[in-house]
């Protein structure tokens, strides 16, 4: 900051510090601000732990109750391998739900992403409507979607898929439209100058630079879907979740642990595949 190194001024090396009068600009004010921010975060965190105002976090309760779960953990450590054949059909159903929901969610999300970004939708009212609707879609948990949809269309994979599509659209549109905002406006200006309509400008000039973010987030959502579709079954929306619910009711934690292992393997495999694809996308 304050040039401790010898300054290569006109004085050169022959005349040291005495010949130079350094005019150091005054320190900028407001350097205390980050520390205040840290202090505020700390205080809020402590308040949330306190029994009066917060969640009443207590180590004592953990110490008192942990043994209740210890037996279950012991069972989880010994998977029931003979259960494997019965897990295959629901596992495949889970994967099918994830893939179908990702594909449908991605297709619906592409135009919505363009409409939700300022760069590709200069109309403030239209953009506001799209964003508000998506905020609402995102605010509802996918489990709630699934529970309502099971009541509406019946038990099975279909309500699960619809719930996942809604969940995916919320995520993809949010992340992709934010990525679009940081794209270069130049190509769009050129297409507008050539006489293109709004839709033409977006298709010909904006879309080519949107693909990487779009593909990236769609792959990310595929991973989320595999995880989420295991939970959706708890409310009857198909996939491994139905099986999880069944074995959990009978306290078969050895079978549950096998299912968890399978989910782990599938998630890792999908993660490896999608990260390989993402590297090629750059």
């Amino acid at each position, binding site marked *: 900051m304050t040039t401790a190194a010898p300054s290569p001024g006109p004085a050169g090396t022959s005349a040291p510090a005495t010949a130079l009068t350094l005019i150091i600009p005054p320190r900028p004010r407001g350097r205390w601000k980050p520390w205040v921010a840290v202090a505020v975060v700390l205080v809020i965190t402590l308040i949330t732990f306190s029994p009066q105002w917060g969640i009443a976090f207590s180590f004592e309760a953990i110490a008192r109750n942990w043994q209740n779960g210890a037996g279950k953990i012991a069972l989880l450590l010994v998977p029931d391998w003979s259960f494997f054949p019965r897990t295959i059909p629901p596992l495949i159903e889970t994967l099918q739900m994830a893939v179908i929901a990702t594909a449908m969610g991605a297709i619906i999300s592409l135009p919505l992403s363009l409409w939700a970004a300022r760069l590709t939708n200069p109309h403030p009212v239209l953009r506001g409507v799209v964003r508000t609707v998506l905020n609402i879609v995102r605010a509802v948990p996918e489990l709630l979607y699934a529970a309502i949809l099971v009541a509406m269309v019946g038990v099975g994979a279909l309500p699960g898929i619809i719930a996942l599509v809604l969940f995916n659209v919320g995520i993809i549109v949010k992340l992709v439209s934010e990525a679009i905002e940081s794209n270069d406006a130049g*190509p769009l200006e*050129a297409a*507008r*100058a050539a*006489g293109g*309509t709004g*839709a033409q400008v977006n298709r*010909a000039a904006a879309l*080519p630079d949107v693909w990487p973010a779009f593909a990236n987030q769609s792959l990310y959502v595929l991973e989320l879907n595999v995880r989420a579709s295991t939970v959706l079954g708890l409310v009857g929306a198909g996939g491994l979740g139905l099986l999880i619910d069944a074995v959990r009711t009978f306290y078969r934690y050895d079978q549950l642990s096998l299912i968890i292992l399978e989910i782990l393997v599938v998630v890792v495999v999908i993660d490896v595949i999608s990260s390989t694809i993402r590297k090629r996308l750059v």
Partner: protein
Amino acid sequence: MSIPAPSAAAGATTPAAASWAISMRDLTVRYGNGVTALKNVSLDIAAGEMVSVVGLSGSGKSSLIRTINGLVPVTSGSLTVGNRDLATTRGRDLRALRGGIGMIFQSFNLAGRASVLDNVLVGRLAHTPTWRTLLGLHRPAEKQLAFEALESVGILGKCWDRASSLSGGQQQRVAIARALTQQPQLMLADEPVASLDPPTAHAVMNDLRRINRTLGITVITNVHLMDLARTYTTRMIGLRAGEVVYDGPAASATDADFEAIYGRSIAPEDVLGE
């Protein structure tokens, strides 16, 4: 590519059907933030002229160029381009007008991940139904126009490459091809060589002069370098703080004229050199 359509023969190499003239009367442009970019500018540019607009950054050069194709709206006064009044032209008519005006930018403004050909085809947007653009279905005749435009700037061989893989000079040639594919009646260039090295800058200015001479298209280009204005253009308009302070032949503009436009003495960086 496929069979060249008969109409495609009338490609980028034939003279423009009718080059456009421009007329400004007391044209004023003020932005939403209160900045006045142009003050009472009155100019007449005849069809087929090769005009340079000179001035420091912030003098209103860019606003002048962008007002001509409606990227910047007219605040007051009148601006007529090819018999159309910009102050009242909107929607479909404005897009049709823009379709006749090619534009080249300092930063090329190509979609980096799209192919060179797809970028050049952006020049046909005003003549293409929206559904065709959305589906990416280009007519063979349009492709033929794009290929001819790329050939005329000497980079047809790169047509399948990704635009971002090209050098700056090549990208600006793609941008020129994009403008030529419009079969324009008027060509605007906003600092077309400011991001290029000297030899490439001369090549691009040569391309612009060739477009003006062989196709008869009106060309208006912003430059901030004295020698480029003198060498490549026939008429020079000097802008200072949004007002026209010089309007005359470019070749005979003296250093004193430039000093008056810039409002300061000439510096070495005002000349590009060879």
